[in-house]
């Protein structure tokens, strides 16, 4: 992919989307990788006891998909500085979820090209299950 420069980023432009189709297997892999033993993510009986429609995707896994979307966009020469997410709803294994983002602001601080974005995650039921913001730095042309 062509290298992204700060000068090429326009306020209002959209970040290339990241589409995910979480499976129970992926949730188990995440539970193991993060040592998060919460049963609502892999035990249907437990999830239903907690009045959930079924096992649900980990909130932090969804946050990490935003990181993946951002790092794929900015490349290895950019840095993710900050993300902030508000959890608004649940996503279930079998759903198709899409991470999206849009540039809201760009400025230079201490010579670094900073870009602020709004980010959100939607599923095929047209629900936005996360709303958030992110700040990245992107290299400038010499």
């Amino acid at each position, binding site marked *: 992919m062509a290298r992204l420069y700060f000068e090429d980023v326009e306020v209002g432009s959209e970040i290339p989307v990241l589409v*995910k189709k979480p499976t129970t297997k*992926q949730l188990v*892999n*995440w539970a*193991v*990788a*993060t*040592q*998060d*033993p*919460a*049963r609502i993510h892999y035990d249907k009986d437990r999830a239903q006891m*907690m009045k959930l429609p079924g096992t649900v995707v980990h*909130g*932090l*896994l969804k*946050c*990490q*998909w935003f*990181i*993946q979307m951002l*790092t*794929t966009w900015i490349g*290895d*020469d950019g*840095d*993710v*500085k*900050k*993300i*902030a*997410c*508000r*959890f608004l709803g649940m996503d279930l294994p079998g759903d198709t979820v899409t991470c999206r983002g849009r540039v809201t602001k760009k400025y230079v601080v201490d010579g670094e090209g900073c870009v602020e974005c709004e980010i959100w995650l939607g599923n095929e039921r047209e629900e936005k299950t996360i709303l958030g913001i992110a700040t990245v730095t992107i290299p400038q042309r010499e």
Partner: protein
Amino acid sequence: MDKAEKTAIVEQLRKKIGVILEPMLFEVERGAIKRFVEAVEDDNPLYWDDEYARKTRYGGVVAPPGFFGLPLGDVPGAEINPDMGILVAPLAQNLPGMADIMESAVGGTYEAEYYRCVRPGDVLLTYYELVDIVEKEGKLGPMVIFVFQQTFKNRINRLVGRVRATLITY
């Protein structure tokens, strides 16, 4: 748990606000980074391929933002309750009553700032803190919101990252 019991526990927990717990130490393992990115299904070779990573400005494999060395097999003394997330577990062992309250907690917000990249072999210290307890009337009834902060530092006491998360209980 009835309302009076919960109120009593929350009052106990209030005494812990602002207390930074004994730090926990994690060594960042290469394999743990790989398992993490495999679970995310993020195929950037920067996180596992030496040859590729050497040619980047990092000069070697790094962890993605969001990976702070957690987890590692043996967290000294940690008893992780299967009904709580990892963020709460280290607090629960030090905060009596936390486990009972957290059984039905849901994530409210998650904010993370990344100051330095994390590499295999790094040793990170994690400081946990209960920052605040906020009681509010929500759409589903009275809520108690817990605000936690985790600060990650390296061995020379430089900030590596900071995470602030809220958990909502009804």
